């Protein structure tokens, strides 16, 4: 599970970036932390990875990581998908730090699209990969204008977007990248996490850092800061709900992915957070062995009744 630290590859500076760049990014991070939710421009570097694959998150992680750290990388909740595997291997090569799949063992978690189900703790840092840092971009294409809207806290237009959803669908249909107001001041894009994860950002004990590589912006939420999801008084913010439980671990509280299992309409719902799901399955198996009774029946792939 946990992979011990190794010697970093020769010929690269520790964590790939040169020390001056790391200092630039650290200074940017300090500024971002002192104005929660405010986007701070930074001199983004070319990384050995295409834009859109987490170049912003990698640069933030590279600037804060040290030899004693333990890193976890998530892609869509999973530790074993392409983006997670390649970024984890990148840091294994250029830093030699220990890596883990367990959320509670890591002190730096780089993530794409999810926040772990395991509650984050003090001392942990979560780094988000952000494709579009500007929450107002779809409403106002001019950068000069969005900057003014942020500096004067003119966020009525964002509310108009939510109004449009209710007018069209009867409810707020936005399910990911759901706009939040940080510290009752700055409108912030939470990166494309499902809105299911928005409540986890509220007063989180962990430091939350956001890096957008293509747009060259960094923003941050310090620990114990209010992160409120926008809504209407008569249409309050709600997270997704499922009728099913996880087919593998039986969880009814986690974010579920629908997985197609065959060509005949077979599908199952499983936890998107693989670490959370595996841990639960392991605990259930151990509890089963200890009691010598049947483990809780996990549902197999459910067939859609025809």
């Amino acid at each position, binding site marked *: 599970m946990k992979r011990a630290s190794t010697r970093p590859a020769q010929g690269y500076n520790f964590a790939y970036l040169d020390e001056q760049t790391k200092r630039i990014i650290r200074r940017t991070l300090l500024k971002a932390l002192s104005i929660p939710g405010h986007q701070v421009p930074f001199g983004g570097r070319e990384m050995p990875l295409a834009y859109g694959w987490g170049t912003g998150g990698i640069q933030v992680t590279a600037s804060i990581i040290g030899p004693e750290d333990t890193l976890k990388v998530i892609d869509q909740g999973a530790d074993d998908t392409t983006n997670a595997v390649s970024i984890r291997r990148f840091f294994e090569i250029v830093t030699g730090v220990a890596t883990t799949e367990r959320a509670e063992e890591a002190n730096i978690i780089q993530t794409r699209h999810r926040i772990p189900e395991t509650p984050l703790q003090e001392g942990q840092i979560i780094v988000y990969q952000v494709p579009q840092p500007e929450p107002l971009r779809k409403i106002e294409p001019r950068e000069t204008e969005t900057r*003014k809207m942020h*500096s*004067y806290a*003119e*966020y*009525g*237009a964002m*509310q*108009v977007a939510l*109004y*449009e959803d*209710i*007018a*069209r669908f009867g409810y707020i249909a936005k399910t990911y990248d759901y706009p939040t107001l940080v510290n009752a001041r700055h409108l912030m894009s939470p990166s494309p996490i499902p809105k299911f994860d928005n409540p986890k950002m509220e007063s989180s004990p962990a430091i939350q850092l956001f890096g957008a590589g293509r747009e060259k912006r960094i923003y941050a939420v310090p620990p114990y800061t209010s992160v409120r999801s926008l*809504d*209407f*008084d*008569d*249409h309050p913010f709600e997270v997704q709900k499922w009728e099913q439980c996880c087919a593998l671990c039986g969880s009814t509280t986690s974010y579920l992915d629908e997985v197609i299992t065959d060509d005949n309409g077979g599908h199952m719902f499983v936890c998107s957070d693989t670490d959370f799901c595996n841990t639960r399955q392991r605990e259930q198996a151990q509890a089963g062995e200890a009691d010598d009774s049947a483990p809780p029946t996990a549902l197999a792939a459910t067939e859609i009744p025809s």
Partner: protein
Amino acid sequence: MTALRKLAPRQALLEVSGVSKSYGGQVGCVDVSFAIYPGEVLGVVGESGSGKSTLLACLSGRLAPDAGAIVYDMNDRGPVDILSLSEPERRRLARTDWGIVHQNPRDGLRMDVSAGGNIGERPMAIGARHYGNLRTEAQDWLEKVEIDLARTDDKPRTFSGGMQQRLQIARNLVTKPRLVFMDEPTGGLDVSVQARLLDLLRGLVRELGIAAIIVTHDLAVVRLLADRLMVMQRGRVIEQGLTDQVLDDPHHPYTQLLASSVLQV
């Protein structure tokens, strides 16, 4: 006591003195001074290039004049030179206490947001967060500007020109502004639609007691709507007075030309 109050001069809503704006060597407007009182409608006429739109942009805070003062009687602070306000204060004023109706509805509307959302934007910008109330208010206004309620959730791009212009008016008036700037509100509309829009505007302005500054080159518009008239030529105000007085007994040669060039049907 009442007699005394009657004698005391009324506070002007907007008092403009010596406003000038030039674009390099090009003259925009020169030394324009006037005052407008609550509930009054002022028409500004003149040929193309006479500085009407420049003047309007200066007054509504979209353009900084080179010289002069623009004093507005703010609701909470009394008379303030708007040029001394900070930008957020000026933007807030423009969003709440003022309305700006553009000649082209595309400049004043969000074309990809439904009619209801367009009307709701200003209330939401100043903190309204109840969907039901916002919608009721939006539909109230759609009724006032004679747009079918079935079109509430349609986008303005599917509206006719006249409907777009009426929607723009509703979107501006929803926060009950005390002063509305209109730049050629009937430009580009056909005559029968113009007549209905003018009728509607006249009703709303009288009913709500809104002061308005209407820039136009159409004398029929000012004849119907404006209490007072200001005639501009080459950036200067050459004649001003009561509308009927100016149009029926023009003194300046240019005003005489303007008044006589209207086709009498």
